[in-house]
């Protein structure tokens, strides 16, 4: 819940962001460069958050199976097919002895010219529900990411606009979330593939010093001779 994963879809790209903290016992910050991204194919990747063991187990299982498909059939699965396969696995495992507490974002760029919508973004939750949207997020950051997305997303979003939106979201998270995201990893998926962009940091919050007036007590004000 405290881990944040966010996806923003633009004109012909998808931006993926994830916080990089691993917390333990609700209070300790164990690691601040955690990777939550799992590559599915050359133009498709998945962000996963939730129960740490489940996240890795499920994501690696899905990722390796998608690689196996490419080896057997010689063609890459489209992002739509990857997302549906992932959802299918999640839903099947839920109705069996071993379920996974993992929330996912699947994002990709379809290299097939028969697809109308080339940049694709899907969110899958741990119960196997899948939606597609322009801005998706999992965890407490949802409150901020979706609201800011509603305000700032527009048709034909450019990369700069998407990154500006993301910086706004990260700043808000830094201000309002007790689990402070020291650093946010940012990646982009477009026609050229999956690339890593610069890290994003929440802006430093400047708080005004408390005024000296508060240091005065009623007793101090009684002294009329000094």
């Amino acid at each position, binding site marked *: 819940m405290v881990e944040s994963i966010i996806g923003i879809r633009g004109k012909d790209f998808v931006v993926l962001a994830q916080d990089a903290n691993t917390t333990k016992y609700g209070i300790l910050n164990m690691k601040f460069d955690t990777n939550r991204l799992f590559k599915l194919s050359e133009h498709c990747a998945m962000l996963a958050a939730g129960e740490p063991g489940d996240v890795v187990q499920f994501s690696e299982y899905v990722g390796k199976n998608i690689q196996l498909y490419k080896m057997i*059939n*010689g*063609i890459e*699965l*489209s992002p*739509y*097919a990857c997302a*549906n*396969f992932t959802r*299918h696995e999640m839903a099947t495992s839920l109705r069996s002895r071993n379920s996974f507490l993992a929330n996912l974002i699947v994002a990709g760029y379809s290299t*097939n010219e*028969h*697809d109308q919508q080339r940049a694709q973004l899907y969110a899958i939750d741990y119960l196997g529900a899948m939606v597609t949207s322009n801005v998706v997020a999992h965890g407490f950051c949802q409150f901020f990411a979706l609201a800011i997305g509603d305000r700032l997303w527009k048709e034909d979003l450019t990369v700069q606009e998407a990154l500006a939106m993301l910086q706004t979201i990260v700043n808000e998270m830094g201000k309002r979330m007790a689990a402070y995201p020291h650093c946010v990893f940012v990646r982009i998926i477009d026609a050229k593939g999956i690339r890593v962009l610069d890290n994003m940091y929440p802006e430093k919050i400047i708080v005004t010093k408390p005024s000296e007036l508060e240091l005065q007590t009623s007793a101090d004000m009684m002294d009329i001779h000094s």
Partner: protein
Amino acid sequence: MARRYDTRATIFSPEGRLYQVEYALEAISHSGASLGILADDGVVLAGEKRNISPLLDDVKYSEKIYKIHDDLCCSVSGITSDANVLINELRMIGQRYLLTYQEPAPIEYIVSRLCNIKQAYTQYGGKRPFGVSFLYMGWDKHYGYQLYQSDPSGNFGGWKATCVGHNSQTAISILKQEYKIGETKLNDALRLAIRVFSKTLDTTKLTPEKIEIAVLQHDDKTNQTTIRMLKDDELTALIKQYDDEQSKLEADRQKQQAASTTDRK
């Protein structure tokens, strides 16, 4: 001969051959022909019907050509009952893929999976191979229009034009001479199919009852594939077109001969 080795399907002969597979191919060579031709704007499958009794109840009966899914259709040559089992399996393979990935299966995926099943019957289990060869025509977003052939051994290959079944060798040699790679449109392919069948079928005269022809086309704008069986009147028209061409050629040839004999005088 090496008859001792025929009893078990899954055994090699001393010469390194699988007799049961070869016998299956022999069975297919006696069955009705299937012909497939790839065109630039579609694919054609044609089948020679053997069951043409007037007593047959033909409400919605297709002897040779079956739809597997929206973008894939196949033609059967060989033992019909074996074919029915495999056609069911082909459809299941397509639907299982659709359930998991929510998009149509690539054609090669379906053909490949069925051929793995066919191969299993040549290696273990002690059962005989399926006595069927299929010709598949389909469209997918990866490779566009495709034509495949599979046989009882589990081998499959992609073709521009091919034929299986009765007199297939003759058909293939005609196709080798007459098929134009990269310049064949659907109408050319249909005319070529009629031409080949006129020469390979046992009957003297080609009629719509003796053949089945299906056409597959994909519309890029609507992203829909249509698979259509040609109706009797369309077949009649094609056959008539071929007959007219032949009579014209014959008339020209006779005129040539008459001219050359008069010259000699």
